[in-house]
């Protein structure tokens, strides 16, 4: 039953036997780790319009979301947030894909795609509401066309597929995109989502960030072969891209979105990246992973890589660097202010929005609890550990 048992021969698939967990080099790359732009006969087309200015702007976004991540982690350490799931190392995957979306596309993500939310224009205070424990939800999904992030692993992939079926029914040319991790590919929901997406040829993009770990479990435990191969078994074309290469991610996402818009159905993208931080601020990765692995991946850092390209192009000026830093600092301090000045929720708020129409059971409980609170001077007293009376 152990995964050590896999040496016993026999199990082979044509595409990628012996290339477990997706660490192999066979993926789309447009920028090398050293920052060199390499050309690609098919995919250059999809980033042909990316100007120098846009490269700088991608660099800015990636830097900003790294800064957001650092700031949020600090806020957690300082007790201002209950928890934070860092995206460190996944900036190219999130910005490359997030920047490829149109306003009328709709995003269904996991908890980790805070960089995508940034691309969608999320209010920074809203980004932290849930992690501070202040509210059941952050932003209004319709304000940025991005659903409330999903914690139930993989559940959102079905929502994206259903939304895409709705787009199709409406005759619109928008697309849905769903983000999930390598671990999520094992959940029934993700596989059922592919069944439905393929059956109805729904305009949905499955964006799988293979960051090599699902908490303490290496991707090899989920699959011995490349995750991108999973999709072909459902009749869904798939792309495997260097997830630390912002241009490669962009090219793949644009191709997939274009296919979806034009009635070509779903696409699966495996973005090969790495979770440089812990799973969340509550996690201790030293219990399960090798420091060397981290070092290897540090050498493939997505921001350093884009900086390398900008450097080669003579774009990485002191001015740009200053400008990006100023922006990142401003965003971080805005976010911090938003976080620490967020008004506390009021006790009776917990009864709001359970239903959209009156419900006799809940109304009675709400009334009783209001009376209970009223019997105390200070609502906080009503719930203190030692009791107030």
């Amino acid at each position, binding site marked *: 039953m152990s995964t050590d048992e896999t040496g016993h021969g026999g199990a082979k698939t044509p595409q990628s036997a012996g290339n477990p967990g997706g660490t192999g080099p066979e993926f789309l790359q447009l920028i090398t780790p050293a920052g060199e732009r390499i050309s690609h006969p098919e995919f250059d087309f999809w980033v042909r319009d990316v100007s120098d200015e846009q490269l700088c702007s991608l660099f800015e976004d990636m830097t900003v979301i790294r800064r957001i991540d650092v700031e949020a982690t600090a806020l957690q350490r300082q007790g201002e947030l209950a928890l934070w799931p860092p995206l460190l190392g996944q900036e190219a995957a999130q910005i490359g894909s997030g920047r490829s979306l149109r306003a009328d596309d*709709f995003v*269904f993500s996991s908890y980790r795609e805070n960089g995508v939310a940034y691309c969608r224009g999320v209010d920074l205070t809203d980004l932290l509401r849930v992690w501070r424990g202040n*509210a*059941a*939800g952050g932003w*209004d*999904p*319709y304000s940025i066309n991005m*659903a*409330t992030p999903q914690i*139930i692993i993989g*559940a959102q*992939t*079905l*929502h*994206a*597929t*259903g*939304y*895409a*079926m*709705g*787009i199709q*029914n*409406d005759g619109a040319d928008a697309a*849905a995109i769903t983000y999930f991790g390598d671990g999520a590919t094992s959940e*029934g*929901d993700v596989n*059922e*989502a592919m*069944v*439905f997406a393929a*059956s109805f040829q729904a305009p949905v993009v499955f964006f799988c960030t293979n960051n090599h770990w699902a908490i303490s479990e290496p991707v090899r435990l989920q699959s011995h072969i490349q995750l991108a191969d999973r999709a072909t078994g459902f009749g869904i074309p798939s792309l495997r891209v260097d997830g630390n290469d912002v241009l490669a991610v962009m090219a793949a996402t644009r191709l997939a979105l274009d296919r979806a818009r034009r009635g070509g159905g779903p696409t699966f993208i495996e973005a090969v990246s790495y979770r440089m931080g812990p799973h969340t601020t509550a996690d201790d990765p030293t219990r399960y992973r090798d420091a060397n692995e981290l070092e290897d991946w540090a050498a493939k850092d997505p921001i350093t890589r884009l900086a390398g390209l900008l450097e080669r192009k003579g774009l990485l000026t002191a001015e740009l660097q200053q400008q990006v830093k100023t922006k990142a600092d401003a965003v971080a301090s805005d976010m911090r202010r938003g976080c620490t000045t967020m008004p506390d929720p009021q006790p009776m708020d917990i009864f*709001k*929005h*359970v*239903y*959209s*129409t009156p*419900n*006799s*059971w*809940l109304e009675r409980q709400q009334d009783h609890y209001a009376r209970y609170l009223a019997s105390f001077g200070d609502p906080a007293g009503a719930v203190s550990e030692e009791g107030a009376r």
Partner: protein
Amino acid sequence: MTQLTFARAINAGLRKSLENDSKVVLLGEDIGALGGVFRVTDGLQKDFGKHRVVDTPLAESAIVGTAVGLAYRGYRPVVEIQFDGFIYPAFDQIVSQVAKLHYRTRGAVKMPITIRVPFGGGIGSPEHHSESPEAYFTHTSGLRVVTVANPQDAYTVIQQAISCDDPVLYFEPKRRYHDKGEVDESVDPAMALPMDKARVLTDGSDVTLVAYGPLVKTALDAASAAADEGISIEVIDLRSLAPVDYEPVVASVRKTGRLVITHEAAQSGGLGAEVAASITERCFYHLEAAPVRVTGFDIPYPYSKLEMHHLPGLDRILDGVDRALGRPNSLSGLEG
């Protein structure tokens, strides 16, 4: 007024909803050409097209999960779960998504999803085809749960459920599918008794008998048998299982002082416990005896040859009525 079976009445209600709101879409297994295994969706795909009445692949979690996505997009999905026992693969999507998304989006996203579930036993089916899972859902905050006991309600309530902005589990008493009743199709669902209200079916002074779904008929039969014995039973059809409309039950128990509750689901932790506890809270000083539960047993639904032993029947309900009245009954003389 026409005579319709439950199945045809629901069909007519679905048709009305499809006609009145282009955002209504039906999803399920075999609901298209076949018209559902009980023919409840008969003819709807033909008339409204494959985009509105969608045969889905065999995956319940996906059926409900894609309905969530459609709701995000502004649709009002109506999902058919083919049999009660096949709702469990969709449990996560129902409990963690459908029920909670309105709360989790602070009211921004509505989940006007109706989940139709043929439920209950008595039709001689094999395992997994006769479940009464309603208590799992009545205990799930964020959901509404309703059931129907006559074709008119079947017709009206399905439309109310579909037009409700909250998610609704609509349980269909499958052993009554072929029973007929008068249906006035001109009834405006918005003007009819709201789906979250109970209905008193017979006036009575000795005992209050609460039932819902398939057992309403049995309860009514029991009431008329009891009448022959000089016992006056007030039968209440709950209709809404979450929330339960306690007002008429409270009013009735304040009058009768005795309460019997019946359902097919297992006794322990069933809806009967909730009704008994809530009515005891509200009517303690009016109660002359402990509320009596006449229910299915704490067993997996049994094989069909013996299912009538598991299902509360007329005599078992009357035995419970006797218990509530302190008349001789099968447990007379037993303590606690």
